[in-house]
């Protein structure tokens, strides 16, 4: 029978099918951060359980950590307690921790791939919806809740209903100035914020195949923003080249065996998806969002569209969203003054994002009205930035690098966009108050962020 890539990996991990119920699925890799794990470890303690397979769980604090002075104690006692609780739990239960100050610390979705912990064919979970990032390697990777984190710790398994499958094909040549982020924001706007709920998405087509691993991670990372359970891309030579030599990747004969298996991980020619959608890369412009969910987006030169007149219930939410942002239907946002720029997050906090940003601002100066927070996704990204001299280019243009972490993406640490201020963010969510109470977020790719940081207004990078 012809199978999809998703089916092949899912089916290879089924331990039990429960009658009329969910699947008991085996998990190859489990990532933990400090926010969604403490209650799960506590649950084990209350039940008197150990971690069943401690060698398969890796932890890194990322959400709460400061992006300045990480060598000093965290000033917020509640944040500090949560980070220290992860350290205590990792030590007590014998799982690997890349804690604050460790050279491998960083955003969990950035460090997993960097260290070869994320590999093709794996099932990967984490108490974090952006776990879909790892699907870029041809893995079945998805976010889970804390009760499910406890299940994985206790049994290395999870109970999950099998999602439906969807393939999104993007073909054609990308226009100049269009990034992977723009592809994702375009797809989400077309699909809407809930349009892929219940589905596991495979991204395919020539445009996707031509993306680098980091670009693929950006696309898969945002799958959850259209409601998808996860997103994935079939592994190929680009994937294998990325994985080879990384610390936890197989070596020698094991590597050859692994690659031979990975080459089988693709949807069969006549595989049937529950839904199949096609997009043309030539239709994609640099994107921005204008509302309070990632589906409310448009090309940077466009005007804010009117809501669907047929959708009575939807109109209320649409109006509330625009009221929060301070925008109106028909308004153009290109040229609108901005206050903050945030480069970072598990969406756009990798080395290629910093290269793109640095190359763009090279020889230019940051606008005086803009506060820019540049937050690498990990210490390995930071080290690479320095090795390539990007830090000097950024400094000359008036930008400072902060220390790695999730930072202003969800503002659990001090990096909060002040109330009413407008931020251009390379992160993943523009929800009300996401970047701090009252903050207003415009999601964009690293090039729109760089161009806007230079001019102080929302700017199409192709016009500079």
């Amino acid at each position, binding site marked *: 029978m012809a199978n999809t890539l998703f089916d092949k990996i899912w089916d290879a991990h089924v*331990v*039990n099918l429960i*009658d*009329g*119920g*969910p699947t*008991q699925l085996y998990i190859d890799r489990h990532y933990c951060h400090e*926010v*969604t794990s403490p*209650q799960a470890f*506590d*649950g084990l303690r209350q039940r008197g359980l150990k971690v*069943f397979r401690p060698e398969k769980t890796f932890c890194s604090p990322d*959400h*709460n950590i400061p992006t300045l002075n990480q060598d000093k104690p965290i000033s*917020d006692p*509640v*944040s500090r*307690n*949560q980070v220290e*609780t992860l350290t205590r739990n990792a030590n007590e239960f014998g799982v690997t921790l890349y804690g604050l100050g460790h050279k491998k610390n960083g955003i969990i979705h950035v460090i997993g791939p960097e260290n070869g912990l994320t590999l093709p064919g794996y099932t990967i979970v984490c*108490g*974090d*919806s952006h776990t879909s990032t790892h699907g870029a390697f041809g893995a079945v990777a*998805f*976010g889970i*809740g*804390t*009760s*499910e984190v*406890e*299940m994985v710790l*206790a*049994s*290395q*398994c999870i*109970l999950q*209903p099998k999602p439906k499958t969807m393939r999104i094909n993007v073909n054609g040549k990308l226009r100049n100035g269009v990034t992977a982020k723009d592809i994702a924001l375009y797809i989400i706007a077309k699909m809407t*914020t*809930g349009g892929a*709920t*219940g589905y596991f998405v495979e991204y395919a087509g020539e445009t996707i195949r031509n993306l680098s691993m980091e670009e693929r991670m950006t696309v898969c990372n945002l799958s*959850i923003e259209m*409601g998808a359970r996860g997103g994935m891309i079939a592994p190929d030579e680009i994937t294998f080249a990325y994985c080879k030599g990384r610390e936890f990747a197989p070596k020698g004969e094991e590597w050859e065996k692994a690659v031979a298996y990975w080459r089988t991980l693709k949807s069969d020619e006549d595989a049937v998806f529950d839904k199949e959608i096609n997009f043309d890369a030539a239709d994609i412009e640099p994107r921005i969002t204008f509302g309070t*969910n990632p589906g409310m987006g448009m090309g940077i030169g466009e005007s804010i569209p009117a809501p669907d007149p047929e959708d009575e*219930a*939807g109109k*209320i*939410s649409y109006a509330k969203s625009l009221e929060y942002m301070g925008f109106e239907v028909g308004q153009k946002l290109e040229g609108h003054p901005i206050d903050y720029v945030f480069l970072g997050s598990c969406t756009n906090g990798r080395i290629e994002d910093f290269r793109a940003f640095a190359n763009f601002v090279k020889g230019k100066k940051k606008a005086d009205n803009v506060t820019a927070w540049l937050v690498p996704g990990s210490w390995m990204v930071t080290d690479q930035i320095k090795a390539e001299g990007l830090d000097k280019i950024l400094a000359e243009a008036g930008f400072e690098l902060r220390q790695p972490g999730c930072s202003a993406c*969800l*503002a*659990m640490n001090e990096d909060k966009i002040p*109330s009413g201020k407008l931020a251009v963010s390379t992160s993943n*969510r523009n*929800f*009300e*108050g*996401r970047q701090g*109470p*009252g903050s207003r977020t415009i999601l964009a790719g690293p090039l729109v962020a760089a161009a806007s940081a230079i001019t102080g207004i929302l700017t199409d990078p192709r016009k500079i």
Partner: protein
Amino acid sequence: MKEKFNIITSTCIPLPMENVDTDQIIPARFLKATSREGFGDNLFRDWRYDKDGKPIETFVLNDPTYSGCILVAGKNFGSGSSREHAAWAIADYGFRVVVSSFFADIHKNNELNNFVLPVVVSEGFLAELFNTIGVNPKAEVIVNLPEQTITNRETGHSETFDINPYKKHCLMNGLDDIEFLLSKKNDIEAYEAGRK
């Protein structure tokens, strides 16, 4: 063991917004606790309280007209972040049922794992229910898990809803997934051995 679930009859609290994301259900700055308790105080925090912590009178949770343990929400409820704190906040506030025409996947699982029942109804049933509650805030709804039905008592209209038999059994008997998985240890070890 959690509170067993059977038949619930209650008035409803209406929230006719669509795409209510988990950042609105509980904002990130309230996720720093290391226990499961107390999240109900900050449920819908930024819609419920102003910057100074004063209740915003127009928000439905601050309106004494509405009460009950059933939350009725617009479509695509619980989108965004996987934070189970959102389900903890809903349960801790006292909700036992959330009714919507559409739930985000992760949040739906999180509700079930916390003995809050997500009931998916048709767009038509939902629109009528919002209308019913608008006209009579004391209107009652019956959620019958054994029969898998939801009934709007004012109009008498009823719908069946889906839930997989395993989860239904868990809810009705106060059982959680961990106990089940622990009972399958032999299967897990056999699976691991088979892969080597």
